[in-house]
């Protein structure tokens, strides 16, 4: 093995400017967190809605929800991203299409957020559905029996328990969305993976670069994990072990 280590590389200036490589990585980290959090918001809101709809008695609504899940679950994330970036603007009305292609600010960022949000919403929806279905049928009946409407029964009885039960799988989805945000490099979002590749080419110190970036991903994922664990502890129901029925 013949490799030239240079741990000082991070404080050196990049070849084409007065920033350091560390600046690149920190800004990449910022974009990674921004993409992941914004997409997570979409995924959580939309996924909860779709997952709930999959359990309602109304056939039409349930079918629309199922179609949503199947569509976003069965196409690779990267392919979906390229569709959003290259194909969707072509399908828009002419003026809007031109605006998207030429003037839209932070186009790459928003495309990545929408794509990753919808992709993850299908997975969140499946977890929400599983959570609701894991509750006993009697819970829904008990809600209805005291005079709740169906929406009220979901709001006060089913969803609060379902969400508590699915915190562990939602934690994995949250970590997944952070990891999956790396795909955004393909359309030029300046997130961590993009910066890693750029720094590796620019500095020719690949191993140091990748080690640093891997460490940063590790830290982000670990913080996310701790954050979710905190939520899990805060919402724990006394006398109820791990949410198992």
């Amino acid at each position: 093995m013949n490799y030239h280590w240079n741990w000082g590389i991070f404080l050196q200036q990049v070849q084409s400017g007065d920033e350091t490589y560390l600046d690149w990585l920190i800004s990449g980290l910022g974009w990674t967190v921004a993409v992941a959090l914004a997409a997570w918001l979409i995924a959580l809101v939309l996924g909860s809605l779709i997952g709930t709809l999959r359990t309602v008695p109304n056939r039409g609504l349930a079918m629309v929800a199922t179609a949503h899940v199947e569509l976003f679950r069965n196409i690779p994330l990267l392919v979906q991203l390229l569709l959003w970036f290259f194909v969707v603007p072509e399908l828009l009305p002419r003026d809007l299409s031109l605006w998207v292609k030429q003037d839209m600010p932070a186009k790459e960022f928003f495309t990545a957020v929408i794509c990753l949000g919808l992709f993850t919403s299908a997975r969140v929806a499946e977890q929400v559905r599983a959570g609701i279905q894991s509750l006993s049928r009697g819970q829904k009946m008990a809600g209805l029996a005291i005079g709740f409407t169906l929406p009220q029964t979901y709001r006060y009885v089913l969803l609060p328990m379902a969400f508590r039960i699915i915190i562990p799988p939602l934690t994995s989805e949250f970590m997944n969305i952070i990891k999956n945000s790396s795909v955004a490099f393909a359309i030029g979002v300046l997130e961590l993976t993009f910066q890693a590749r750029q720094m590796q080419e620019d500095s020719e110190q690949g191993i140091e670069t990748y080690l640093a970036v891997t460490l940063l991903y590790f830290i982000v994922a670990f913080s996310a994990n701790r954050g979710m664990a905190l939520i899990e502890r805060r919402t724990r129901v006394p006398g109820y072990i791990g949410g198992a029925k």
Partner: protein
Amino acid sequence: MSFFTQFDFSVIAPSLPFLWEGLKFTAKLTLIAMAGGIFLGTLLALARLSSITPLAMVATWYVNLMRSIPLLMVILWFFLVIPIFTGKPMGAETSAIITFTAFEAAYFSEIMRAGIQSVPRGQVYAGQALGMTYWQTMSYVVLPQAFRNMLPILLTQTIILFQDTSLVYAIGAKDLLKAAEIAGKNYGRPIEMYVFVALVYFVICFALSYLVKHLQARTAIVR
């Protein structure tokens, strides 16, 4: 009005042979990584559950490490590091196969670990009572049951793996997606190619997940 009039899907037909080559690599990568991943994953699972502490620790670390980094970074890592170690340049395709096998092993090992733990402890005792060694108990009694219990989940993971192979795009390996991109450039029709390739992925994944659902329903009755 009709936005589809500006699309020209006639470019698909002549590029089919080229796309077929891409799909063949995607399939090859999926199958090798599945077989290798399940094999290595099972060994990793056994290591994690073994009473030899250092072995269990190394396996745990490996699995947790792989599972906390984006696959894309792992692909870039292997592509960068393997040539440094071997001193020889390596093709993107070979690198992809090694990467996916090593990466998927971590995920498959978690599934196999759950599968092994789903087999009642009494089965191990029963095997030992018959005079079987550790490896005999594992390979004749525990693993077959674990494998059968986990088959639907192993297959679901394989569908995810199939989708994830599109990420070899990052190192330029010629899979289905890359082939579509090249064909799109050659004909000046990237849009149609992306749509077509998305459709191919969708049909394959949808059909496979439908099969898994059926299998799940059937095995659920058997148990």
